[in-house]
């Protein structure tokens, strides 16, 4: 496996702007600077179809399209189906994790989360950086 491309395009999706800002800052600390934002699933899907991304980090609980619906759309799209998709959410019941796993989630981070967890999970998804 080649080194992780630190210039990769990452899409972060959350309906709380403060959370987008937090994730953006934490990604910056990890060395990822090419970060785009969307505030709901529908907007995210549009962006994903408009240009190539190498990673999606999405919240679950959003209107009108939830993170789970977004994940299903991504996995059902021939162009996007292999895109790494990490869920960051306050939903922490086991049935949530099972549903996300069945829908093809790459990894799952529960809120509140810390920077170390984010780093570990991203390394699990992308490889060491």
């Amino acid at each position, binding site marked *: 496996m080649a080194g992780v491309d630190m210039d990769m395009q990452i899409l972060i999706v959350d309906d*709380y702007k*403060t959370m987008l800002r937090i994730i953006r800052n934490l990604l910056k600390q990890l060395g990822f600077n090419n970060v785009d934002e969307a505030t709901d699933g529908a907007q995210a899907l549009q962006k994903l179809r408009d240009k190539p991304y190498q990673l999606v980090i999405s919240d679950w609980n959003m209107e009108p399209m939830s993170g789970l619906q977004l994940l299903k759309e991504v996995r059902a799209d021939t162009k996007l189906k292999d895109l790494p998709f990490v869920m960051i959410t306050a939903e922490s019941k086991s049935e949530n994790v099972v549903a996300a796993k069945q829908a093809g989630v790459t990894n799952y981070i529960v809120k509140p989360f810390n920077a170390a967890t984010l780093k570990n999970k991203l390394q699990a998804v992308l490889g060491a950086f």
Partner: protein
Amino acid sequence: MTSEAETNGHAQRLEALVSRYKDIDPDDLVNIVEGIINTAQGDLSSVNLKVYGEIEALSRYIHSARQEIASLRPDEITDEHIPAAGEELEAIVGATEQATNTIMESVEAIEQEAENLPPEVAQRLTDSVTQVYEACGFQDITGQRITKVVHCLTHIEEKVHALLETFGEPGERTAREEKASKTSGPGDAELMNGPQSSEDAISQDDIDALLASFD
């Protein structure tokens, strides 16, 4: 004595009644009817009399229940308390969002400054900054919890509204008029309203002007 055909007829009517009033337990209905019948002593006319008496009592009971519900002023719950609670909660979400953004703006500036410091100091500073970012996640979590509470309130509002529709007395929307007609100045309790929402809040400048107007 009842024939079989008659019994079947009663059973059908009972079923029809139950299907019309979903929440009625048919056993309860049977018990009530049996109770009424059993209290009858002797002939049919006395049964009629007893039934009439029972119905009258029931009517009085419903009427007093309606009056009691009206005296609880459920209209205040739907017209005042719940909307006020909703506004307060929305204000909380707005205020935490604003404060969180301000905190992050400051911390981002601090993080920027860290680049100009000796590496070991910069590292300590960056670690603290990271912790602040992590803590700022509270805004998202509390926001989601408050949204849940707002949904609960809306649900309660709907239930109270349904109760009013069913049992409410007409002409009970007098609470606010009564309150408004109090002519004396506000008492201490009425003066303690907590933080104001931005649209009805007055600024420090307004307060200074008001204070100056007394001089």
